[in-house]
């Protein structure tokens, strides 16, 4: 394998890695505040992409994306208020099943609103064939958009959770909910807010990625599975690790094409997931004690 090929695979891997990382970050935010794994996370990404395309038919691109993020955030809030708030000390099993049900519902609603076709936003800069030749490796400008917006999101979250009041409140809730409530933090609102934030990030991810991958009513579920793999790989609750884990998974998947038939690409993600779960469930970067403390 020559050096150009090697780097081309890496670029492909990084594109995917960023998408997975965005979904994983969404998982982590909700997990940190509530201990819930939101199986409907992938649907937020799908909704973001679909609504952005619909808005783009009569709004300029940046406005369309903002509107899509806004709408999906509202959906996230609604989900929390309508379905999650009700529950009184739910068991893990029940939570998993409810979020699965929510994911099914969102997917079928999307099917009946938008039909079965694929949609995509236009490329933010350039066209579907433009590619920057960086040292022999061809990179679509959209990939640079995805990676840079991803980096901005991670930086923003870092600032948010460490320096803003709301962010600190969320961290307090995730560390010890009862103690946080004793301090006067409204835990219920924090939960709602974490859903909204997760939804917003997922929607943004869906919009910026849609020119490359297209969105369809059922694109959410496979993303959720991969995103969850990445979240566990990095250690549940650790968003910075999720980014690294996303890159690792993306690149590994990309390189398997060199050895295995392409149809088995998805198996790699599963094998990695199972490997991690059996050997080191707290993830590559997590430690078992820290996992229990659930710090961001």
């Amino acid at each position, binding site marked *: 394998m020559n050096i150009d090929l090697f780097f081309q695979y890496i670029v492909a891997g990084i594109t995917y890695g960023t998408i997975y990382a965005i979904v994983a970050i969404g998982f982590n935010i909700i997990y940190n505040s509530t201990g819930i794994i939101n199986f409907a996370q992938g649907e937020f990404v799908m909704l973001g992409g679909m609504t952005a395309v619909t808005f783009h038919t009569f709004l300029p691109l940046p406005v369309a994306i903002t509107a899509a993020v806004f709408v999906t955030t509202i959906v996230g809030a609604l989900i929390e208020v309508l379905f999650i708030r009700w529950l009184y000390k739910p068991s893990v099993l029940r939570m998993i099943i409810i979020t699965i049900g929510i994911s099914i519902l969102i997917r079928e609603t999307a099917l009946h609103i938008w039909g079965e076709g694929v949609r995509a936003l236009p490329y933010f800069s350039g066209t579907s064939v433009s590619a920057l030749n960086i040292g022999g490796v061809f990179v679509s400008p959209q990939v640079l958009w995805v990676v840079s917006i991803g980096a901005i999101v991670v930086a923003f979250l870092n600032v948010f959770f460490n320096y803003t009041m709301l962010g600190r409140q969320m961290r307090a809730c995730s560390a010890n909910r009862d103690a946080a409530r004793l301090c006067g933090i409204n835990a219920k609102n924090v939960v709602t807010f974490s859903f909204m934030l997760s939804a917003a990030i997922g929607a943004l991810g869906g919009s910026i990625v849609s020119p490359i991958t297209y969105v369809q009513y059922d694109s959410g579920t496979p993303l959720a599975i991969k995103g969850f793999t990445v979240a566990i790989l990095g250690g549940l609750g650790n968003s910075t690790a999720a980014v690294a884990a996303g890159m690792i998974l993306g690149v590994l998947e990309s390189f398997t094409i060199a050895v295995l*038939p392409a149809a088995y690409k998805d198996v790699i993600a599963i094998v990695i997931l199972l490997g991690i779960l*059996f050997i080191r469930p707290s993830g590559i970067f997590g430690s078992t004690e820290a996992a229990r403390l659930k710090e961001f």
Partner: protein
Amino acid sequence: MRTSYTQVFGFTALIVAIQILTMVTNSSYHLTQLTMTAYYSLLIIGLCMLIGYAGQISLGHAGFFCIGGYVTAFFTTHDLSSHKANPVIALLAKAGILIVRPDLYGGDLLTVHPWAACVVAMLTALGVAWFVGGPVLKLKGHYLAMATLGFGTIVYRIVLGTTFLGAADGISDVPPFRVLPGIEISGNASVRVINYYFAWGLVTAGVLLLLNLIHSRAGRALAAIHGAEDAADAMGIPTARYKLNTFVLSAVFAALAGVLLTHYNGGIGPSEASVMKSVRYVAIVAIGGMANLWGSLFMSLILNYLSLRGYFGTYDDAVFGCILILIMLFAPEGLIRRSILRDLRRLVSGGGVEETGS
């Protein structure tokens, strides 16, 4: 135990009543979907045992269904005529394990006898469950869910990607399965009634087996594990062994369902291993009320039957998702239970619905 027997008797009466009803109204064709539903229900009661009583979630049980179905489909359709000269093959043919049967277009096929294929399928499922179950069941909660999901996905990818298993088209032309003289599992309209009773008889036998298990020492151990695993461990209950055995038992139920349904339908496809199918099975167990064997059975009967008849049209999955959410929010113990009147009263008077145990 006595109440259990009356329940089983009542259920059997219901099954017979349904068949007589279809006979009287000249609508025996309903029995087809009801028989298919029976086989799915076989999987579901096994799963209910695992999720509800042992407290271990499995989002990959469609994988075991497929292992059973594909193994039997492959062995009963793969033509070994070209290997007739091979001494091992000749020996097996003499022993009756391989049979010659005519194919639809005039030729002759040398394939494995359905009974032998069935045994191999069940043993394979048992082996896989035992092998996979060990490490997987050490996990808990979300991790267990994802591990089982991963297992189901691997099975799906294997059957979808392998050419000799039919890849995307699956395996068709699976012959009928002659279980006993006079009872042949096939989709043929002439043997509809027998197939119906055989399928539901098998389900009833399964229910009896599981009820016995629940009311035995093993069942109490499982309840203890479900309630508080560490405490059960402290009491000296070999939790890992019980969990593994339940897992294997539910896998065997699923594989048997797969084998029989494949013969009934005359084929199987990779869609039977998809994530959505596994989720659907778990959802039905949940809708029935997790630790509620009869609830799961009835819900399976209703929902699978309606789905197979296309009652909900393109809204099939949507209806399913809705029911799932509503039950999980308002009736986590399922709709068919003794405390339903009490819970309804409480709901109306403003209190929430409590979840007893988990």
